[in-house]
């Protein structure tokens, strides 16, 4: 299409764009062939948009001519996410850079997608607030890009990643409509599906973000350890103590040496590992927690412990952490920043193996990681002009990811999948799960124009091999329900999905009902990783009792009904902040496995959050993995609301339904034609 009508399409785009903002010169084309990763692809034109209306017009033109397009912010992506794999148009959002509103009363900000993260931080600082996600590239990367990648950063240990801070999005959808999606919407959480979708399901044109008041006190400390293992033991014990630090960053000896030779932050050179721990909150709380943390570090052989409370001193300690990537970037032209995640109790094991992998491939590696949430960033330095070396590095990177997956982890904690890790998706997700992702993409973007060929493996990619550890197995009840449901589905018999029956009050015929309340087993309570996997039919009451007995805590409100009901009916939306994974039974009989035992994970579409508010109309929730805590703690960042509104499906809900349940077999009255 593009080739035949190039002149015409360009002319149409030119009419819509501001003067000088449709780029087609060779040099401009070349300068949009890359992002911060190694992949390359050529666009045919670049459209620098001024507002949502222009984005919409550009998308409509692309749609009319079936031309692919890719939204792009600052292009700091580390996984090749914003290069135009199929050519077409790059829709640049950097010109949409206005902070539209900051509301310190209701704690939110409204921004355009081209606003640089740092600029919002600066603006908020002036009014005593901050925006929690702080990716390393925050001085350059845009908030639109942050939403697309579901960006994290050191602070997300305590405050959560981008998706925990988005309140609403305005998007230009693949059909050219401008839609606003919000957490307040009833029905499946489409907003959450768009966060982290890497621009494959639409282009974000306005963002409502949660902002937080600055804590009364922040204390930064540095602890030096004689071994990586002892540092990680200290991390585990800090988590177990119930203290949730603002950040909990770790560096190994190679990193510390690189840092010291460049920024001279005064880090102890004889340390095998250094932890940078930051606590915040009221001064009494910080003082109390500080003592606990210090004791734990000493107990685990920390031979040095420095505390800083004044801004200047704290900055000095941070200089080393911030300078880590910087110093590595000076040692060689390229740094591969790998981004694996493992369950927190597997950190030691993972690190040992990663070191072996690096040695085996003879690559130079420095370890730098968000220890508190198991998110590892092995930094491998190389020169991309050396093809052999580059190959080795890529191989080592892939092997590290395979390893993380086999430990029950994930292939990306915050950098996204893009094109670099597309193959790795088949290591992490089962074919039925990948097929669900494919169908979601297909029904939301039928022409496959919005950032095509990203995230989901193509047929031409290498043979899929699963490295994920075998799943948790099924209870007897689960087996029975799966069997029953499959049987009904095979005969196209529709079912009413009911848990404990507290949400739905229609008079249903007994033979139509598929009860899930027998799903009441606790499948796994991992007391060192702080994750819980329970079957969805467990009642909230039993769930809370069980946790209490074992000494864990999950801030779920009291209420009637089951956990599955709470999620399906969105009776308490706050559950989204603790949701790590799910197993679902689809109407075609497939079981899909999403997320897992890691607290940070951006691989694939966020289907678990999509299921919130779905009222059983998309899939049967079999079991749920949640993040739990050692102690209650006050969290102002977490959105807490109670709503239990039934929803009238719109066009987009119907498209999603097509991807999950095309024959309308589950809770059929929801999607019945009216």
């Amino acid at each position, binding site marked *: 299409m593009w080739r035949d009508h190039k002149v015409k399409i360009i002319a149409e785009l030119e009419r819509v764009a501001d003067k*000088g*903002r449709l*780029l087609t*010169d*060779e*040099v*401009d084309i*070349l*300068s*949009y062939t*890359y*992002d*911060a990763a190694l992949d390359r692809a050529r666009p045919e034109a*670049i459209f*620098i948009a001024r507002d949502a209306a222009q984005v919409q017009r550009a998308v409509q033109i692309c749609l009319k001519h079936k031309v692919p397009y890719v939204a792009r912010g*600052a*292009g*700091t992506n580390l996984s090749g996410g914003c290069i135009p794999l199929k050519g077409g148009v790059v829709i*640049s959002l*950097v*010109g949409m850079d206005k902070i539209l509103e900051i509301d310190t009363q209701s704690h939110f900000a409204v921004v355009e997608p*081209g606003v*640089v993260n*740092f*600029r919002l931080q600066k603006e908020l600082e002036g009014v005593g607030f901050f925006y929690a996600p702080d990716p390393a*590239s925050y*001085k*350059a*990367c845009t908030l639109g890009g942050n939403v697309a990648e579901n960006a994290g950063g050191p602070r997300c240990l305590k405050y959560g990643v981008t998706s925990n801070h988005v309140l609403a999005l305005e998007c230009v959808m693949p059909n050219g409509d401008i839609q606003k999606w919000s957490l307040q919407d009833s029905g499946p959480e489409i907003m959450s599906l768009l966060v982290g979708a890497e621009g494959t399901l639409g282009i974000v044109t306005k963002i409502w973000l949660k902002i937080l008041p600055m804590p009364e006190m922040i204390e930064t400390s540095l602890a030096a350890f004689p071994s990586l293992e002892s540092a990680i033991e200290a991390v585990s014990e800090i988590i177990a103590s119930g203290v949730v630090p603002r950040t909990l960053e770790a560096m190994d000896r190679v990193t510390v040496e690189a840092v010291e030779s460049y920024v001279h932050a005064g880090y102890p050179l004889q340390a095998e590992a250094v932890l940078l721990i930051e606590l915040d909150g009221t001064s009494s709380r910080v003082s109390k927690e500080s003592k606990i943390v210090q004791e734990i570090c000493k107990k685990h052989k920390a031979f040095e412990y420095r505390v800083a409370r004044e801004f200047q001193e704290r900055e000095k300690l941070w200089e080393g952490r911030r300078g880590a*990537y*910087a*110093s590595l*970037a*000076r040692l060689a*032209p*390229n*740094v591969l920043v790998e981004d694996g995640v493992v369950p927190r109790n597997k950190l030691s094991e993972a690190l040992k193996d990663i070191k072996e992998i690096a040695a085996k491939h003879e690559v130079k590696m420095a370890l730098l990681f968000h220890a508190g949430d198991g998110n590892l960033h092995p930094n491998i330095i190389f*020169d*991309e*002009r050396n093809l052999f070396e580059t190959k080795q590095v890529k191989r080592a990177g892939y092997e590290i990811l395979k390893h993380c997956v086999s430990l029950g982890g994930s292939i990306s904690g915050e950098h996204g999948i893009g094109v670099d890790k597309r193959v790795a998706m088949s290591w992490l997700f089962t074919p039925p799960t990948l097929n669900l992702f494919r169908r979601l993409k297909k029904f939301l973007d039928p022409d496959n124009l919005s950032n095509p060929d990203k995230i989901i493996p193509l047929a031409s990619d290498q043979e899929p091999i699963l490295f994920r550890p075998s799943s948790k197995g099924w209870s007897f009840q689960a087996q029975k329900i799966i069997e029953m449901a499959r049987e009904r589905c095979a005969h196209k018999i529709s079912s009413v999905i009911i848990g404990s029956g507290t949400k739905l009050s229609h008079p249903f015929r007994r033979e139509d009902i598929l009860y899930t309340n027998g799903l009441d087993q606790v499948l796994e309570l991992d007391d060192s990783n702080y994750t819980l996997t329970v079957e969805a039919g467990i009642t909230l009451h039993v769930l809370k009792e069980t946790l209490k007995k074992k000494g864990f805590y999950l801030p779920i409100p009291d209420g009637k009904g089951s956990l599955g009901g709470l999620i399906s009916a969105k009776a308490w939306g706050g559950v989204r902040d603790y949701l790590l994974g799910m197993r679902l039974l689809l109407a075609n009989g497939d079981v899909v496995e999403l997320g897992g035992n890691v607290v940070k994970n951006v691989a694939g579409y966020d289907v678990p959050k999509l299921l919130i508010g779905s009222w059983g109309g998309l899939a049967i929730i079999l079991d749920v993995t949640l993040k739990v805590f050692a102690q209650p703690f006050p969290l102002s960042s977490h959105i807490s609301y109670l709503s239990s509104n039934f929803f009238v499906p719109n066009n987009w809900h119907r498209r999603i339904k097509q991807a999950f349940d095309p024959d309308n077999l589950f809770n059929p009255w929801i999607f019945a034609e009216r």
Partner: protein
Amino acid sequence: MAEHLEVLKTDLGERGVYDSVSQCSRCGYCLSACPTYVVTGKEAFSGRGRNQVVRMMVEGKIKKASLAEEVLSSCLLCGACTSACYAHVPTAELVLEGRRTIRGGKVHWLVRYLTWLLKDHPHLLAWQLKCVHLVRRLGISRWVALSGILRALGLKELEMAEFQVQEAPLKFLHEYLGANGQVKSKVTGWSYFTSCGPNYLYPRVGLATVDLLRKFFGEGRFIKNSCCGLPAYNYGDLESAKTMAKKNMQSFNVSLLVGDCSSCVAFLKNYDQLFLDDPVWKPKAQAFSTKVKDIIEMIPMEGLRTSDLGLRTGLVTYHDSCRARNGQGVVSAPRELFKALLGPRYVELPESEWCCGGAGAFSFTHPELSQEVLLRKISHVASTRAEVVVTSSTSCLIQLAHGLKKYYPDCRVMHLSEFVRNYAS
């Protein structure tokens, strides 16, 4: 004629052009620091973009060098990207390399002519400039009459803005300095480098600097110097730049050489870049560089009048000359000085590290882009409500005077020497 520099001085040591451009890992951390990127939103107009363009030229991926012309000529050479870069990739130097490739040894006639004047015929240049200044003075003579009216109307600031243009000097700095018989004085402490800006456009700046030097460091000496060579270097004539550099190094066999146009001073400090492949001149240039100082980094706090300063000046802010900040790394010295002198009446300028768009001849070659960058700068100045914005490069003085007059006449621009001499000594 030497068309290229084989080796570049980088923060990671001396590197070939290809090696130093490959050090850019495309992380993009420089983007938000680049004025032309922020103003246009075009990737190719960013530090990363320009590095990649130069790299693709080297790798033969850009077949016709002329395709890169606009991207490279639109670079302000401010060096903000290099300061933001962890590896300090010398983008400005790489852009200059790219420009030299595009020119293929040819130099624009105007540049050739100017260089010829600067290098070999400064008297002719002086004569021509005086003619121009004279014409301008006559052309604006009505302002002299107008100014009385303006004052009567209470629009004193408007008149103040005009004073920049009115003062097109008919007597140049070297004439002042020569006239008071200092040329042959005994060699002590400092020597003064007469930059073209203060010499031909702003003699008052040079005179203020000399006053300060005398006050704090005793008598020094003045030697008729050649142009530092920066215009020739930036616009393609490497040979002439080298000739001028050699001339200056020979004339100033001194222990301390002080200049007051930060662009020239940065270039003097960087002379060794010109001679990295010349075993004879390289050590000389390196030794020379260590002796050069910018006046803005050497004014001592003692002996300055601070008591009622704030009352006499109103709020004061400071715009970093790119060549002071990124070219020489002078950031804190002037700020500490202002804080000591003015206390709370010194206000930090938002984005003070941003180029003003003057950038040598940039405002003539890219007027639209230059205006946009300037407008952003002036709006920040206005946001401080300062009455005086202090800076230290000729190019900034011209550009800011023009911008303030046009958009924000409540404020005027002064060179740091002038400011300190007028108000604090």
